[in-house]
């Protein structure tokens, strides 16, 4: 074959499994072929196609930071055929991976700015990659603020990291759960992310906002940011249209003239406003 088979995955070994929340796990993955591992590089925002051979492929972002070399991590929720098969696997088992695909967060362009991260539910993974990437380059940025919300306390993922970030003097972190999702011990806020955001009255001055979450949260967060004076091109998010190929061929992620897998998944609010609302 003169051109390489672009659908052929690398074989990766699960080095470590972390249970994050009910139905949510993180895999740390190593390339079986160390040479492939050395050649591999990616940037914050990119994703891959992960597969259980015999069950199929599914799309997750790369949740570890490119500054932490030698492995990649993904965090996923058990949902359907492939994620359920992944859920059954143990440390030492192998899976398929192809990627990295898609565009990236333009971190270099954010030097000297304040960063406001806003994430909801299982959407913290793409954000986690970006947050660690930015914290590993902490001197590039001014204030770093993280707002993270989930349905219930149990649904918050990356609990150890939330504590680690909270302990840092150079990060301001606010966590919230939906009304009714709190426990007696809960010390964070209670309320939906967009409402809590409005209460925080963030300054839009020299600030980039990055929003990841379910479509409904994103919609209302955009409204809150708009009210706070954020310009559409200072707001970034990722779209998660269903994907198969990841390389602009299968047509599944096509929204307007855009292929989310190739032109995204990272978009500014300004770009999204120009797209048909098919995401």
């Amino acid at each position: 074959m003169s051109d390489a088979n672009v659908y052929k995955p690398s074989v990766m070994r699960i080095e470590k499994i972390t249970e994050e929340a009910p139905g949510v796990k993180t895999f740390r993955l190593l390339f079986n072929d160390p040479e492939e591992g050395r050649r591999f590089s990616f940037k914050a925002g990119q994703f891959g196609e992960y597969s259980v051979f015999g069950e199929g492929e599914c799309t997750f972002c790369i949740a570890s930071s490119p500054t932490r070399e030698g492995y990649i991590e993904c965090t996923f929720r058990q949902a359907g055929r492939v994620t359920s098969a992944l859920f059954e696997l143990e440390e030492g088992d192998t899976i398929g991976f192809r990627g990295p695909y898609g565009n990236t967060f333009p971190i270099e362009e954010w030097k000297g700015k304040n960063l406001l991260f806003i994430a909801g539910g299982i959407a913290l993974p793409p954000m986690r990659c970006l947050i660690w990437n930015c914290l590993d380059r902490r001197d590039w940025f001014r204030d770093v603020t993280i707002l993270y919300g989930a349905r219930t306390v149990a649904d918050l993922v990356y609990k150890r990291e939330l504590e680690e970030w909270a302990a840092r003097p150079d990060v301001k972190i606010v966590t919230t759960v939906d009304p009714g999702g709190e426990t007696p011990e809960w010390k964070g806020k209670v309320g939906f992310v967009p409402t809590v955001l409005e209460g925080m009255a963030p300054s839009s001055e020299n600030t980039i906002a990055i929003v990841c979450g379910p479509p409904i949260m994103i919609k209302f967060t955009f409204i809150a940011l708009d009210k706070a004076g954020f310009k559409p091109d200072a707001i970034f998010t990722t779209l998660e249209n269903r994907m198969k190929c990841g390389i602009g061929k299968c047509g599944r992620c096509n929204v307007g003239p855009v292929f989310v897998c190739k032109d995204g998944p990272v978009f500014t609010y300004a770009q999204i406003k120009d797209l048909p609302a098919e995401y």
Partner: protein
Amino acid sequence: MEIERRLLKKEALAGLVEKINAAGRKVHAPVCEGARVEFAPIDSIAEADLGYVQTTQSAKNLLFPRVERILSFKRRGGAMETADPDLSALPETVVLGMHPCDAAAIGSLGAIFTWDTQDAFFKARLEKLTVVGLSCAAGDEYCFCASVGLGPGSTEGSDILLTRLASGDFLAEIVTAKGKALVELAPELFLPAPAGADKDSALARIEKSFTREEAGERAKARFDDDALWDGQALRCLGCGACAYVCPTCACFDIQDEGTTSRGVRLRCWDSCGFPAFTIHTSGHNPREEQGARWRQRLMHKFSYMPERQDVFGCVGCGRCSRACPVDMNIKEHLIDLLEAKS
């Protein structure tokens, strides 16, 4: 290269098929199967039906099979081994008697498979395919090639284009180097073309109802006109037949077959008309209504592909309209789109 004109006597076609077969190449041609005509392998010209108007299925299967193996995997000991399909074993193939719409469709398919990342499967098949097109002497009410920049005698996509003259003999236009190489298999059959050989009078008359550029601009301008799209798609069942018969539709799914120890990864035709095509895991569906899916089909072919891949995604073959169980008619809907007031 400049197109060369030759004459192929009607009785010489049989010899040409023999020579191609003798050279170890497979020949596919339209073959009558009961009430339908479909592309199928032939051993002799007697099996072919060259008087057909349109096959039910397009020949895209030859370049983009309905189901294609893209990987095989096997657990050996503890380790998973993966292997590429062997594309070097693909046979050299000649498709004979393909109409100009289908020949032009190869360019649209190719744009999708090679516009960015190169798809080795499509390219390997294309490399081994030679197209001997056949101009249309007759169309039907579903044909609209003339409205999408083509015509019953266009050479686009053909390596050789045959046109049956009034005498019954064929004018052979040799368009590409691949076509020339095919002539070399039987040079004695390709006679000098008579100076007065009149191709135009041998062609079907296909009305030009609009231009593809107009159709694309108008669809874009009326994107938010839900009443238009929902109205047009009211009876659409979302069955996907239109996409399956279409020579340019290339949406696909990827699925595994086998067990977790041994199996294959397949890519299979899919359709943007299926409700499940875009559904998120949460159950949220970005294209909830059939009208939005129908709009996607037209926008993709007439607006997005020209914008991103610099080709149109419809060649006016009319297959989708003929195949639709509830008589959705793309040509009529495009005319309606152009005429309706906004």
